[in-house]
């Protein structure tokens, strides 16, 4: 019965990487079917031959090789697409789906690329979901670590995994997240696609998920009663829900004595506040409320702006936009060109603009401080969103001065307070341990 083989052949007629290899085992002919881009054929064949040598019949061989024997054509097609090796015997309905020796498409466990832990374990998550979950299992060997897996999507079934510690994460949260993940209909391509499943936040810069590359951080989040999600082929653990404290703390801080940990976190908070407020404060102090300083200080500020044609707001927004452009441009460029752009940008921003009397000395200092401060927070996504938050405050400051800075800051706080994911507010500092231990 060459039916199945024929059918597969016609189904995949547009796939040149499909192989159908004939092979003789004992007296029966069998066919190996699979994609040579996903299956290492030579090694897999060798493996099957070795197994065949120790098996009495073809049927026994099939049973030895796999527990998916005699499945229907639909499942076979799916298995081929997933990179399995399908073995079909000639003139017989016998078939089996075998886990082959796969082509190596993943990198091995490497160092983190986006985070740089100091004095800490430097294993990072990789692309393969099983390896990622394994990294967690290895470090957290308890039977209370639960793992739910999902296959979602319309065109491409993407594998998702949800991990939580039973008895730690609140049951309501687990149930809701479970529901939301099960209902996914559309393809999950990016974090934002997944993010939308947890309730749309229109035009919100704050995600429901906080990505981390470090197993230690993911485990810490699990222990802090949260859920960790994994997407297949995505080298990050996604911690749900995302809380504001993620921006200021990493587990690795705690490798230092408490006082140093406190200092590090304090600096991050200062950095975040400074990023949001400093440019606006400059505009407010220079253009609207110069009178609140002592006279000598006010004179100094006024002097630094002597002969500058642009208004304070225009000058500041110009600089802020240029700096954000540079930060983005450095990302886009190949590593070899990056430093030159930084150098040119630095010269333009630091020297040329001041010498041309386009912006004031003081502003350059302020902007530099902001750039450095915005990078102090943990996680590039957080750094990006606090960089965005400074613009509304800047506009308010240009109208209302100090009052604008203050109301803008309060408005930002109120906005952040209004965010919730599955009824857990973004501004919570810890999630209550509410799960059943049974």
């Amino acid at each position, binding site marked *: 019965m060459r039916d199945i083989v024929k059918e597969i052949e016609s189904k995949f007629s547009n796939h040149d990487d499909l192989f159908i290899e004939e092979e003789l085992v004992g007296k029966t002919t069998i066919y190996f079917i699979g994609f040579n881009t996903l299956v290492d054929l030579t090694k897999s064949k060798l493996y099957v031959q070795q197994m065949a040598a120790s098996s009495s019949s073809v049927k026994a061989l099939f049973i030895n090789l796999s527990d998916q024997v005699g499945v229907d054509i639909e499942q076979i097609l799916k298995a081929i697409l997933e990179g399995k090796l399908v073995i079909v015997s000639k003139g017989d309905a016998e078939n089996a789906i075998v886990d082959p020796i796969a082509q190596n498409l993943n990198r091995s466990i490497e160092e983190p690329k986006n985070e740089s832990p100091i004095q800490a374990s430097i294993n990072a998550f990789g692309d393969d979901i099983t390896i990622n979950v394994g990294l967690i299992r290895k470090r957290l060997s308890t039977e209370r670590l639960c793992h739910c897996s999902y296959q979602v999507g319309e065109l491409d079934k993407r594998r998702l995994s949800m991990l939580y510690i039973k008895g730690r994460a609140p049951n309501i949260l687990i149930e809701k997240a479970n529901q939301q993940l099960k209902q996914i209909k559309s393809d999950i391509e990016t974090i934002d696609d997944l993010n939308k499943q947890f309730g749309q936040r229109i035009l919100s810069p704050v995600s429901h998920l906080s990505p981390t590359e470090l197993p230690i951080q993911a485990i810490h989040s699990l222990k802090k009663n949260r859920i960790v999600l994994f997407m297949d082929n995505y080298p990050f653990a996604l911690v749900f829900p995302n809380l504001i404290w993620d921006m200021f703390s990493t587990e690795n801080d705690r490798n230092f004595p408490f006082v140093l940990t406190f200092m590090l976190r304090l600096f991050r908070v200062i950095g975040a506040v400074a990023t949001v407020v400093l440019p606006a404060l400059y505009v407010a102090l220079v253009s609207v409320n110069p009178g609140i*300083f002592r006279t000598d200080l006010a004179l100094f500020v006024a002097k630094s702006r002597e002969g500058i044609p642009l208004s304070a707001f225009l000058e500041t927004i110009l600089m802020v936009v240029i700096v954000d452009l540079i930060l983005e441009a450095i990302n886009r460029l190949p590593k070899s060109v990056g430093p030159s752009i930084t150098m040119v940008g630095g010269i333009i921003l630091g020297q040329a603009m001041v010498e041309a009397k386009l912006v004031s000395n003081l502003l350059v200092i302020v902007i530099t401080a902001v750039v450095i401060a915005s990078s102090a927070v943990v996680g590039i996504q957080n750094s990006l969103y606090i960089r965005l938050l400074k613009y509304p405050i800047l506009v308010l400051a240009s109208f209302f001065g100090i009052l604008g800075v*203050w109301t803008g800051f*309060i408005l930002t706080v*109120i906005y952040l307070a209004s965010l919730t994911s599955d009824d857990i507010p973004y501004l919570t500092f810890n999630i209550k341990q509410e799960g059943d231990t049974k």
Partner: protein
Amino acid sequence: MTQRIQIVIVFILIQLSIGYLVYPDLIYVLTKTAHWELVMCQGFLQLILIWIYIKGLNYFPENDVIDIYLKMGRWVAIIFLIPFVINLIALVAFNIRLHTEVIISVFLPRTPYWSILILLYFISVYTSIKGLGTILRSSVFIFLIVIPLVVFNIFSSVINFDIHNVTPGWELPARFLLKNKFFYLLGFSSFLFLGFMASKTKLSFRQLFVAWVSVTLFFLSVVYIPLFIFGQEAVVTLTNPFLEAMDSVDISWFSFNRQTMFFGLSLVGLVIVANSVMLWMIGQIMRKIFKFRKVKSSYWIIAFSVISFVLAFLVPNQSLVEKCFLWSTGAQAYSMIIIPFTIFIYGFIEKRRVKA
């Protein structure tokens, strides 16, 4: 996620917001000596009312004030709560307008007042639309930022104190109790919102007592700082005695010119919390009473805030604003007496009936 500590914080913030501006004025008008007696009298009266209110509310677990009134009947709810809503609208309007005047005098002498009105209204309405959770959470953060400023203000003004300004410190009998304006003073103790937030969390009197003590201390300081600095005779002539008192402080080593700025900043934070709570109360009342209309509470809030904005916009000058503000707090005092008592009595009767 409503927590008691958050409610207590909102309680403190609202008291501070209402008490900062007109409260000392009223005290100076009411008595010439022994101001602390007056403050304490008002405080104890407030404490008794809060106790009755909480006692009444605790008869009905899982219910807020509106639910309790609706149990008595829809018309009872309308009769008791609609005047309260109207009063709140006026209070929001005059409160924001009053603060706007102070903000203009502190920060932005050249800016037209309507632009600041719009700014304050926008933030208050936005916060109240986002709901109770947002108000409570943001008020914790505002508390953490504002209270240090308030404390700094109070302690920095010590350098100008003259102890002779407040003698004699004793007066008997307390004649002010009979004056009409003492009733206005009661209107400053805004605690009615407690009943609106308490549906899921049971309030504990002990925590509120701690809050009450700190608020009373604050009121005393608000009254006594201008007194210590200027003395009773001078203070009566000032429009904003506390503001003037802050303006008189000059610390030579401090890099900022005026302490008033910090005062202004703390005012803005407080007024936003107070008004968003009031607007939220309006939205809750209207939504629950007119349930059959299926109007979201956010539409009610927006509609009423527009009315209140027009009201605030139309008042021509500051002295009229202050008068209107006093009237609306006086009217508030009626609700403050009536609502706790009705709830308490109704709860008492209900309990009897259930037992029988």
